[in-house]
């Protein structure tokens, strides 16, 4: 059996306060909670206020290449921004990238609920309007392998620069330090 964790997004209930971004970026600061910066948040609210679009989206997997075709979605007569529902950290846009390093940012379910210290993700906890809710359940199957933040970042560097260059750089740096 594997544990499945789901953040349910009810965009109709989102009132665009971005508390989810605040809480997420604070949790992922180092040391924990020491700084806030929505740009580092792994959940972003895409908003187009006058068109009544308020859509929280969590960062998903990193991809080294753009899709063959981008897409737009119109729902209830409202046209969402290009690839607006997509969670990928992708070369076509700045979303879900660290503003300083450019490394990908993805939801890690508050680092898998902070070793038992959290009963729900911070974004859900701070969404008092219940646009975000949290659910856990069991399903048949194996636990998937999850990369930690460092491996995840290195993977993106390898994709960009090649394994050899990254290994060289790490070797050089470790000798210097």
């Amino acid at each position, binding site marked *: 059996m594997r544990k499945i964790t789901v953040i349910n997004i009810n965009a109709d209930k989102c*009132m665009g*306060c971005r508390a989810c971004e605040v809480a997420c970026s604070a949790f992922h600061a180092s040391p924990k909670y020491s700084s806030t910066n929505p*740009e580092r948040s792994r959940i972003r609210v895409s908003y187009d206020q006058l068109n*009544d679009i308020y859509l929280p989206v969590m960062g998903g997997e990193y991809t080294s290449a753009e899709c063959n075709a981008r897409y737009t979605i119109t729902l209830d007569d409202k046209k969402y921004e290009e690839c607006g529902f997509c969670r990928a950290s992708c070369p076509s846009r700045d979303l879900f990238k660290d503003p300083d390093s450019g490394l990908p940012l993805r939801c890690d379910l508050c680092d898998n609920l902070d070793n038992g210290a959290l009963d729900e993700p911070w974004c859900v906890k701070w969404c008092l309007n219940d646009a975000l809710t949290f659910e856990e359940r069991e399903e048949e199957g194996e636990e998937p392998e999850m990369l930690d933040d460092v491996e995840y970042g290195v993977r993106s560097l390898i994709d960009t620069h090649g394994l050899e260059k990254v290994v060289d750089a790490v070797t050089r740096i470790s000798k210097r330090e």
Partner: protein
Amino acid sequence: MRYAETGYNLEIDLTRGSFDKIPTDPKLTELYLGGLGTNAKILWDRVPPETEPFSPDNLLIFGTGILCGTPAPSTNRTIVSTFSPQTGLMAFSMMGGFWAPELKFAGYDKVIIRGKSPDLVYLWINGDKIEIRDASHLRGKGPLEVTELIKTELKDPKVQVAAIGLAGENKVFYSSIEHGRSSASRLGVGAVMGDKGLKAIVVRGKKDINVAHPEEFMNLCNEVLQYRNFRWENPIKGVPAILAGVGSPQEMALRDEEWHTTSFSWGHARTRRKGFWTKEIEEQWNNIQDKAIIRLISCYNCPNECGALISYPGLGTPTYMMKCYSKLTYVMGAMSNDLEFGYKIAGQAQEYGMDGYTNPQVMAFAVELYENGILTDKDMPGFPPRAPDGSDEERFFWLVKKIAHREGIGDVLANGVYWAARHIGKGAEEYDHNTTKKHEQMVIKLGMLNPIYYLLYGTGEKANITQIEGQIPQVPLPKELREEFVSDWVQIPTGKEERFKQFMMEWGDEDKIFPYYPLPDLVCDLVEWQEIMHYIDDATGICAGMSSFLIKPPYHIHNIPRMVSLGTGIDINEEELWEIANRNRTLLRAINVRRGVRRKDDEPPVDHWKRRFPDYEAKLKDEYYRFKGWNSDGIPTEETLDRLGLDYVAKDLKERGILSDGKTEGALETSSGGGSEK
């Protein structure tokens, strides 16, 4: 390392087209915190009292609260400070939304604007990259339209925009600075921005804001949110719905308008319509509100959704965002029975960029002059007739356009009731009955003098009767609810618990009623509590709708010092925070004193209450001045200024002969005086 603040101000000189990133003095943070406090310090230091509001030397300061950009819930206020073209005094107008945190993330605590641009420009603050850009293509356009155009132009949907409309460009004395559903509306800050040739300030930031004690800070944020949830579920019993909950207030979510429509005055603050809120009206208005509001919306990091997105076929304006009570101000000013009129005209006026409190009053004043033959068809060619149902809706549409364009009579009315009355003459001054310090006040006309509000309204430097109250109900609670109310009243300042609880328990009893109850010393205590909490919010950036404006707010004098200490790393206890707020309050007083404010100006409108008590009011004022350490003419004494670390203020006031050496007592005035006689 600086915590909570960035430690930098951005200085813009529009005459030279130059900018500087200036490090700030941490000592000033300890003395004045941020927001309004440090804004006031800059205005005192750099803008002498001789400087006219429309001089290039007048500064326009966009300050953020010290806690903006930290996770402190509902802390998102931008405090705009300058000198008001309407009053000539310090204007501090504030807005919520998203602008202040974005400026922090861009790396600045304030934007300080001086000079004048020869051409219409907008300022683009993109982190460290600053551009002053041409705005000629935005001329005459409304703030929301400008915002959309700029987002497209800069190819970034996440920029935050504060902009003026046509009214600001035309220097209408009560024009606003608009930002989405929020606005800095009062006292003509938009006119100063227009005078400087600045159409908008656009901000985008991607930097961190740090807090000093992360774990404890976050725990305290959670406590505040928890109490907010408790208050959300448990409205205060025995007060009108609008005052019972949390928010700034909940004008968009709530539909019960009995309190506003029956307690406030209609037309030019003249008529009470005590029977207005009938079943029929209630049903009609509920339908309109349900149709108009498509979503409730919030400001940055705040759960309270006090704003709303307004749109429906037939609205007559594009979709816009609304907050608070401007849906009613126009309706009541125009003696309309139709809430839909309110949504229509508020949308227009907001895109012109006009203050939703002053604007309807100016128009109702013009209507009154017309009805009384002081303004005629010669002054107002084409002025529409009154509708058969007695409403002035069409006239308001006609007037709002004239004023925003400064066309014909609109050019006169654009300066507000006080100045327009004196310009028009022919007895028009008689109709200027609802201004204080030349500024339009709330449209409340009541029977019995309220000694608490007498002092709050009269002496408040905000110069307007909105959002300077809070903490206590506006009228006594029903007897059976008092015990419960005081049982969990944790917000009372240390040492005042018994005093304030006893007040709440006995207020309204047979001999414990206005005007002679509470006694002057208790009145002063209650006034100071309300006042200080607002000054704390205005320095920290906490929204009054989670704090000083509420009864039993989530933020109060016991948790804000902790929030400030944990956030900034500067240890501040309750007493010290109180003193900072008092210092800021006194500095503001001194700034206005230096511009001529005295005892005689500290007066609510003469007809604010039907029953006035001049001798007793003079006594109240004496007591309050003594309590604040001011002399009998309302000037802070040298001793008070020194005690608060404002000795440089005392020195200046002495050099100017406003305070005399050794003798700080001014002439004693015995009658209440002042105000506009009717």
